[in-house]
């Protein structure tokens, strides 16, 4: 009888611990919204800065994901990102002169006009994505150690696929 009682207590405690740990370690979804953009990210990332921009650090690998908005003059509303990208990238490369460009792609099938540039320095890689909607540029960079870059990239892609850029004047 006493033995059964102890067995029952152990089973109940195990169940509570299992659910408790699952709950504690579950991956939750968070979101960031400001006047310029919205993204969703999961709890494997922690927020470094979320004032007028979103800077995240991956908890396990210390990789960085930084999303910022640059608002241009309204005259740039209908100018293609193609026409601006060289200047934008030139400005970014001047701020990161040790990083070498190893790959580049325009992404015509994405929701927004966008370009991706991949840089490498020693055993680190940095991906720069530039998105344009109307007169707003969303400038994203993701930096990680090369060994875990591709592993964390999946999570980065999931975050960037939730990107929604807000432009225009509200009607109602």
């Amino acid at each position, binding site marked *: 009888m006493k033995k059964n009682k102890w067995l029952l207590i152990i089973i109940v405690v195990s169940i509570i611990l299992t659910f408790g740990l699952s709950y504690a370690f579950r991956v939750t979804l968070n979101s960031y919204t400001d006047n310029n953009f919205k993204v969703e990210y999961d709890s494997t990332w922690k927020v470094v800065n979320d004032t007028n921009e979103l800077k995240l650090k991956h908890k396990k690998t210390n990789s960085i994901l930084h999303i910022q908005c640059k608002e241009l003059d309204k005259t740039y509303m209908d100018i293609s990102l193609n026409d601006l990208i060289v200047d934008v990238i030139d400005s970014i490369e001047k701020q990161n002169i040790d990083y070498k460009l190893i790959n580049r792609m325009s992404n015509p099938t994405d929701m927004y006009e966008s370009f991706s540039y991949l840089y490498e320095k020693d055993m680190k890689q940095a991906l720069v994505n530039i998105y344009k909607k109307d007169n707003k540029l969303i400038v994203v960079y993701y930096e990680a150690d090369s060994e875990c870059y591709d592993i964390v990239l999946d999570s980065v892609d999931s975050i960037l696929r939730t990107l929604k850029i807000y432009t225009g004047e509200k*009607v109602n």
Partner: protein
Amino acid sequence: MKKILFGLLLSFIIFSNVKAFNIDINKISVDSQAKQLSENLNKTYNIETPGFKSEEVNNEEVNKLVKEVVKISLSSDSMTDKRQEFTKYMYYSNDDGAETLSGNLFIKMYLDVINEMKIEADYIKDIRTVKFNENDIISFVYISDALVDKEEKDIFLSFWLKEDNGKYGVYYPWITVDDDLESYFSEVSKREDKGEYIGGTYNKVSLSGKGNVTVSTNLLNSIYQNNIDSVVQITGMNDGGQNSYGSGFYLREGIIVTTWSLFLQMLTNSEYIYVNDAKGNTYDILGVVAAQIDYDVVVLKIDKNSGKGVSIGSSTKLELDDKLFMINSKNNNGFQISYGSFISLNNGKLSNLFLLSNSDVGGALFNEEGQVVGFNVGDKTNSELSYANSTDYLKELQDILNNQDYSKISYTLLETYKQDYYTEFEEEKKYNKIANEVWNDYRKIGNLGNEITLPLIKASYVDGIVSLRYENNTSNLIDSIYLVSSFTENLINDGYEFTYSDNYKKIYKNNKYKIIIKSSLDYLIILIMEN
């Protein structure tokens, strides 16, 4: 011990000073390189543009009225309430009761259409306003990300406003959906594919009230035949295929004109830029003869003294509703003539009711006499309203070049610009950090070691996850994710379950492993982790 401490201290100093990647958004500039490029131009030929202004001047009073009208159009109020609200902004003529009555009817029809379409929209992307006549304005409101009967679409609300006693009111409103424009472009492409060169117009509105929207086939044929040798298409390509495409025209034999914006686009994205005419002849671009950024024009020399220079007419002689013609190709499959209507000329900029696609940018606009009066610019494409810059400013340069021998026309080499714009990549570091004993196990999964024959760029094994990056050296037209069919077939045969798929990623699982196959840039990435 001291050496160890010194080594540690030195390492600390080095690593703490290694600068991580960072972007200061305030240091991002968007026009410095273009200005630099124009400074490198051979200054032998100048393009003077006195009085030309590319900026729009907004009429705040009209914009305010238009925003109110849009708000009413898209509100969730009942039709009765909407009509009542709209009457505050209707045009009333003190002299012409018929005009007032017809305006009333147009508004009723417009609101009925809006109601049927069940439109939901929150944001106005842009408002463009063009004045024509003394008392008329046409205003185009661009609304992106609208829902039309729950489907996401771009919509365009257009308002013809008339003024009476100092107050503007809505006379004729109409709505266009992006589907309508796509259908038109699709029809144009089909005609091109069939070799039909007489096209039509998207334009349905006559602003002059003369009702003459259509043009005779004879006139279209005449303008086409007289000018087909004067127009070109310009294509930019890299190893992956065509990536930029636009239009241009001959200023004289061997010299073509297009927009500076299109040229920059091609410099950025394309390794090869070439020109072709309607007969299928292909030419290389030798270099830049002249350019003017604010006027958005570049004049290029091609590698053969061929083609036929256009006759430049005067854009100042155009009148409201005059027909404008364009000869070009949407698919580079055959040239076609299409047309639109002139609205107004302001500071050297033509505003037209002429639906253009991106590939029409740089193309010549001809008047009914077959003279060029403007070249299309990309300020507004995929829209009923479009813009062109007057070619009046090119007359002087045309006269100079016509009096010169082709071989004597100087230019700045194209390569001079390409080295500043088209960037070659550095070589990526290649490594394989997976220990042999680990790889010997993982390479058997789906016979991975033998099935994927793409060059392996990076391989690592971190925290029980194998990460493999392969280079897709086949073609940019083939997405990496389609190069693994034998591997994925093996996975299925080995009992893996196909659990997820989208354009970029596929996931397979069994009791032991989870395998993610994805494409990123032009890489194939395979991640294998314990399940």
